[in-house]
């Protein structure tokens, strides 16, 4: 397999939970192998849906989603499960199993997919927890860890099987500044150490720009506003890109939801 091929490719993909209301419309994207790609965009623009399509949770209504040169076929369960065993995903709120301890959460994929002896499972779990700074929290219950710690436990679980693709869904949402910095550093370090391909979905511009090799900016219906290196986007003269990366409240993306004129709504105009 040529390593220059993109690891993930969207080829004219359209998708909507209700096909009459598309969330992604005719989107074509390539995510480079071995790099950290940030997918930025406002709420509801279809960022998380992109990850779900890659994971085969949903099937595209039109177009193709390719994983390492292979078409993702959601109907072929064995192929889908084989593909999924090559990826790890960090969910927005961790999605940890609340009936298991921190240790057992990280051990979960190892126990499900390997026949490793207990001693080896223990060593791997502790190594992964050490990588996210939570080796000492192995015996805690999920109800005993904070939001930031839960995110790190989820990250340890996502990398338990050393996946080739790691997807991060809003890894910085709701974190304090220290936890945010820790999460950003972890994402970058993990990518550099493991050589995995990383996709980070977020609307946190500053953190994403600091750790990404490639950035894609999406608008509604998955329209690609801009893509390139963080520097290219930061220095872009395109008004929509500038508005997003600078966090300006009004611009090409309107502050107000479409509505009748203010005067008409308050009965000031005949």
């Amino acid at each position, binding site marked *: 397999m040529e390593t220059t091929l993109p690891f993930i490719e969207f080829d004219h993909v359209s998708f909507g939970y209700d096909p009459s209301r598309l969330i992604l419309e005719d989107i074509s994207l390539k995510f480079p192998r071995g790099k950290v790609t940030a997918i930025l965009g406002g709420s509801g623009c279809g960022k998380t849906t992109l990850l779900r399509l890659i994971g085969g*949770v949903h099937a595209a209504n039109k177009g193709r989603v390719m994983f390492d040169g292979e078409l993702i076929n959601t109907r072929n369960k064995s192929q889908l*499960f084989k593909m*999924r065993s090559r990826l*790890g*995903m960090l969910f927005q*709120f961790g*999605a940890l*199993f*609340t009936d298991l301890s921190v240790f057992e959460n990280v051990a979960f994929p190892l126990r*499900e997919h390997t026949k490793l002896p207990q001693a080896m499972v223990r060593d791997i779990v502790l190594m992964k927890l050490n990588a996210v700074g939570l080796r000492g929290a192995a015996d805690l219950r999920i109800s005993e860890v904070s939001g930031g710690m839960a995110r790190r436990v989820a990250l340890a679980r996502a990398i338990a099987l050393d996946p080739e693709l790691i997807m991060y869904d809003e890894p910085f949402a709701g974190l304090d500044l220290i936890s945010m910095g820790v999460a950003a550093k972890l994402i970058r370090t993990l990518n550099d150490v493991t050589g995995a391909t990383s996709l980070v979905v977020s609307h946190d511009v500053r953190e994403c720009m600091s750790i990404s090799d490639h950035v894609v900016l999406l608008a509604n219906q998955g329209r690609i506003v801009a893509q390139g290196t963080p520097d290219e986007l930061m220095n872009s003269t395109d008004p929509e890109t500038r508005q997003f990366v600078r966090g300006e409240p009004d611009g090409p993306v309107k502050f107000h939801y479409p509505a009748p004129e203010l005067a008409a709504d308050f009965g000031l105009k005949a």
Partner: protein
Amino acid sequence: MNLLVGLGAWTLDQLRGWGHAALFFAEMLRAVPASLRRFSLVVAQIYAIGNRSLVIIMASGLAVGFVLALQMYYALSIYGAAESLGLIVNLSLVRELGPVVSALLFAGRAGTSLTAEIGLMKAGEQISAMELMAVDPKARVLAPRLIGGIVALPLLAALFSAVGIMGAWVVAVKLIGVDAGNFWSIMQTQVDVWRDVGNGMIKAFVFGVICTVVALYQGYETQATPEGVAYATTRTVVISSLWILGMDFILTALMFSTP
């Protein structure tokens, strides 16, 4: 015309729902062998589901036994047939009340708990996380609970009947003064282990399948919101109860239509 269109749409909707539920059931059955390979999970679920309902089942069985003995004694003594009390109580419990009341209580206690648990797992994206880790949630989460429910309900129904008979004995023999030898011996001679106890167990097994499948389906298909989970738990009780009562009539007609 609008009425016709509405009726057609409703019918299609119902058929789609039934088809979806049937597929769900088939997929869950297909996942049973895989879940049996994780036998410790199955045992944990039998314990969790059965244990959760133990107190309510025993308390209800005892109360039903008390009341049944009182009511039947007064009715039978009018016709001078009070010596049949043990038989009437036993048949009422093992054939009908044991399986039916246990199943209704099971739907309210363990069924709602299963629905809420699966619904909240879905809301917390635990089900999606499992799917994305290439682990089939039907084999890992649903099938062990299905087996747990199917095994637990017949045991609970048997316990309900046993406790009910003990309750009836306390009221009839200890309080009213019915002859103890008569109370027990008529059961030994007239209650058939296959026809009466066996058919009661078959009923409990069928109700176990109904309650658990309905609870798991409602939890798995719930909208991942607080309102969605609340609605799903209510539906679990309503749908399970209607199914239990309907199936009980059909099973009774099939099992006991000849004397």
